[in-house]
């Protein structure tokens, strides 16, 4: 049922929409090379880069659309790309 006034009461529920399947290329983050400069983190249009419990940056492939901004901007070349294979 459509809500009154088409109001959306679940903030941020786009998370149900897994945009990971938009990818042609997959960025791979090499934690060894990562200097935690946060550049990839702040420039990701999806907010798909996150810190794990060990404060290592990881890529959430559920949402990463494969734009590769992270790879391009990484100062240490810690993020490489591979072609998605389905």
């Amino acid at each position, binding site marked *: 049922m*459509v809500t009154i006034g088409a109001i*959306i009461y679940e903030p*941020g529920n786009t998370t149900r929409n897994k945009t990971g399947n938009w990818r042609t290329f997959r960025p791979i983050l090499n934690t060894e090379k990562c200097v935690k400069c946060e550049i990839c983190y702040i420039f990701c249009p999806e907010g798909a880069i996150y810190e794990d419990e060990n404060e290592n940056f990881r890529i959430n492939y559920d949402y990463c659309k494969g734009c590769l901004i992270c790879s391009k901007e990484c100062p240490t070349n810690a993020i490489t790309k591979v072609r998605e294979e389905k």
Partner: protein
Amino acid sequence: MNKRFPREELFAPGHRGCAGCGASILARMVLKTVGRDVIVVSATGCLEVFSTPYPETAWRVPWIHTAFECGGAVASGIEKAIKALKKRGKFKDRKITVVAITGDGGTADIGFQSLSGALERGHDMVYIMYDNEAYMNTGVQRSSATPLFASATTAPAGKKSKGEDRPKKDMAMIAAAHGIPYVATACISYPEDLMKKIKKACEIEGPTFIHVLQPCTVGWGYNPENTIEVGRLAVETGFFPLYEIEYGEFRITYRPTKRKPLKEYIRMQKRYRHLTDEDIEILQKYVDEKCKLLGLE
């Protein structure tokens, strides 16, 4: 280790923005700076459309969209309503920031009057114009923020045309002419500068205006990975200088060590691919003049 950027994601993933979308990057940066005590107004535009197709929303803060030309007016109403609610005791001990995020069309063209009214009336709000230099939502039609010689679908390059035939409307200076306390330009490629300006705008009482350059992969014609790079070149060439005007005082906030040739910026984008080196020279002169005017040699 100190964190550079706040970790809370108030603009959720799963939105329908293009891969490499600059507007999404801006939305994230804005919300990371402002935090949860905010009410966001969007005018019709790309950001609004790709972030809220019912029944989904990327916004984890209260957000409203009404129409294209009234971002300033809707924000005005919200700001006054907050004041009214405070009288009732609601939001008593905290500041709720009203932030309008509207595109160049919704700001410089159809929403111009509404913006001017809101600035002139002195509402306490942060107005952010995300400028991708054309109507990207509907297929790259030109807006008054489209720069000279850029090709757009309603100002196409052709045998008798070099694309857009008018220079870009200078919204920051127009906003500043309203005598508001804070005006700034910013670019998503410079997150610290951008977020510092947004923070300042939030803290200042009264209307503030931030003109953010936000590259668009589709409209400008470059590979998604280059969104940040293109924005950076816009600034490094002096095409889009970063400055702020705080209580009337002008200050360049980022000074490239040596301005790069405009050609590097132009040649990255398909919207300029029809230009000859001579054409680029004309644009270079425009940029040089503007930089001179702003003291950015």
